């Protein structure tokens, strides 16, 4: 039926946008750009959620969409920008792995997730399947970002991108309960992360509170 097809292509389109944003995050070199890309991704996610709410006519997904739009799309980026100012974090992104290689690995991850999801044809609606492939790619890309970016804020962004992937998968899953609770739970996590960064004054590294301290720590240097 036409709506089904249309619904599918639209959902696919939005999901693809989210994925593109994920790549964008890996690609950006400047902090502000990273944060903006993230907010775009969040908004795309909101759109996806809303669309799914409409298609599955599951009203509670609108709540998810709202959370994504308001909290992730606006508050968090704002908070991040504020943090960057407050803590005087470098404006450029520190990479542990160069932009190019990171992109290549990312493509590999996307390929992997597609390979993994492809055989899931029988009885699963194609919609779920494509959605799943996209979501898994986003998750893996987020994790990749956490690993390859040194800067605290970029790593938080990576974590949140990962979470976006999760929500994407969740909203895509037809009639899945608890999606709202889950997105709320995650928002709490994110809030705690930001709070922690601010409270513990994590400037450059996610790794440790104080680089020089790392060696002497852990009571193991007898």
């Amino acid at each position, binding site marked *: 039926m036409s709506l089904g097809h249309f619904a599918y292509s639209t959902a696919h389109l939005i999901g693809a946008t989210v994925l593109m944003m994920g790549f964008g995050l890996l690609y950006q070199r400047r902090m502000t750009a990273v944060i903006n890309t993230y907010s775009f991704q969040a908004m795309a996610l909101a759109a996806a959620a809303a669309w799914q709410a409409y298609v599955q006519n599951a009203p509670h997904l609108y709540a998810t969409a709202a959370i994504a739009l308001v909290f992730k799309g606006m508050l968090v980026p704002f908070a991040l920008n504020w943090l960057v100012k407050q803590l005087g974090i470098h404006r450029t992104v520190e990479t*542990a792995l160069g932009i190019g290689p990171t992109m290549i690995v990312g493509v590999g*991850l996307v390929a*992997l997730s597609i*390979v*993994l999801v492809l*055989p899931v044809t029988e009885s699963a609606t194609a919609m779920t399947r494509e959605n799943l492939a996209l979501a898994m790619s986003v998750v893996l890309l987020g*994790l*990749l970002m*956490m*690993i390859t970016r*040194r800067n605290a804020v970029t*790593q938080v962004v990576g974590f949140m991108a990962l979470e976006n992937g999760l929500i994407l998968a969740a909203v895509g899953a037809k009639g899945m309960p608890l999606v709202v609770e889950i997105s709320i739970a995650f928002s709490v996590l994110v809030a705690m992360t930001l709070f922690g960064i601010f409270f513990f004054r994590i400037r450059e*590294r*996610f*790794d*440790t509170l104080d680089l020089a301290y*790392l*060696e002497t720590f*852990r009571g*193991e240097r007898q």
Partner: protein
Amino acid sequence: MIVGSALVSLLALALSAILFQKVRIAHALTYAGCCVVCLVLVGDGLNHMLWGAGDGVPTLVLPFGLPWMKAHFRLDALSSFFLVAINFPAALCSLFGIGYGDHAPEPGRVTPLFPLFLFGMNGVLIADDAFVFLVSWEFMSLTSWLLVLSNHKNAEARHAASVYLIMAVFGTFCLLAAFGLMAGSAGAYGFAQMRAASLPPLAGGLVVALTLLGAGSKAGLVPLHAWLPLAHPAAPSHVSALMSGVMTKVAIYGLIRILFDLHDDVGWGWGAVMMVMGGISAVMGVFYALMQRDLKAVLAYSTVENVGIIVIALGLAAAFRDYGEAYLSALALVAALYHVVNHALFKSLLFMGAGAVQMATGERRLDRLGGLLNRMPVTGLTVLIGSAAISALPPLNGFVSEWLVFQALFKGPTVEHWAMRFLVPVVGVLMALAAAFAASCFVRAYGIAFLGRPRSDQARAAVEVPPSMQVAMAVPAFLCLCLGVFPVMVTGFIATVVEPLAKVKLPAAMLGWPWLSPVSATAGSYSATLVLLTGVALMITTILVVHHFGTRKVRRVPAWDCGHREVIANAQYSADSFSQPLRRVFGSSIFQAHEKVEMPPPGDTSPARFSLSMVDPVWDILYAGVIRTVGYIADRLNRLQFLTVRQYLLMMFMTLVLMLLIVAARQP
């Protein structure tokens, strides 16, 4: 069942000892209790061995241990034999402990564990399934470990204890693996099922190898012996006596139980391996003993030697059985068991003697002793008998068992395989060397410690130990003589034990009155009784003749010593100087024995210093190697402790990707 109740009472004793450890008399009472319980066990064992054959083999099942398996106990001829062989020395050690217990560094750490140790050992003997066996085995190690730790303030003792426990657990794991293989895929851990089961050759070989590793490490076979000379001397002497004289026998029991009862198709090749291991253990053990300066260390190393001799006999038995020589195999087993009894007797006797010396002088170093025979007559006499017995001198018991082993060994070439035929003489040489070394080792130990002039004030001030301890030493000394003079009494009993294992009936004439002629009527015989009687007759004649024709006057004079009288006691031959020739000849190559004499420059009045260094090749190669390896890996892995969160995330990511790849790989 008497045994059960006896064991329970041991537990009760331990508990009371823990509760009342402040009360001084409690210690003595505990030991007395242990002594009684052990004697009861001896009685029960004898009863089962002599008259128990009629009313079948008593078994017992208790609802302990693994729920669906329960705990099985069984008291067959072998068990009851070892019950006797182990609990009798144990009773003596307990008796000794009554007087000696308080002289342990911290009696509170010894007395409660003593009965528990006995409990563990007896548990091994009556176990009838793998779980009970291993639990008791481990319990035995555990308690003896704590006993070794009883003087924990001393760093060597701590080191010894750790090495000991780790080796013990290694052994247990090997045994566990052996049982696991025997139980097979059915998971049949009862001994009965194991007897029934038959294994594929590979698994069978593994079982033998693992058993040798497991029980061998407990018995102290070279190269698994390293812990033994550290741990045995570190414990209080009556415990050392238990560990050396008794616990090693429990290990031998495990060996026999597994290789001759549960899994009784051991290839002659494995028998040969056992013979070689035994031979090497015998020679190396006694050679180490010959080099020791600590009285108890000498005894501990000589335990390695005697275990070696026992294992030689067992190996022979296995090889003979594999070649269908059931009768010779039985003979070798008899020899082994006889030596088990003998060693249990004289080794505990000697350790008790060492304990008495330590109590009287507070010294264990040979070079600080001397002249004790005049000051401690009873100890001196009993230890002399013990030393003569362990040196395999007629008419004492040590000789009988070694004679039997030799007789069995000389029949070795009946195993018609060139390897065996060339092996037997080599093992023969090793064993002969061991016997000869043992003699000089104990001449050295006894001569330096008990004869000559005192080398220290403590030795000069030594006094005889209390009567209870004297009795505890006198009884085994007397038995060493009896078992040497009337071996036929014992061999008969042992035959009844061996026959079910070797599945052959031993003709009574071979091991019977008046003389042992085990192989055949003409192939050599020994009648200790006749020899002794003749000897006595000759002795009487000699005395009569000499005293009739000669004078009986004796005058006490200062030692002549070729004219120049030596007043300094330390000018006597010391332990090191006694062993110097053998050390020069054998030690320099194997043990890198290195003597250094530092002469002071002319005009300097400081004394010349003699220093001696020796290394234990086994330790250097095997143990140090293992320690290095573990340390290396630990250092490499230890970096994981000091990574950054990002790197940890990376590890996580890698794991995830790996998993996903696996999933992807197994997709159509």
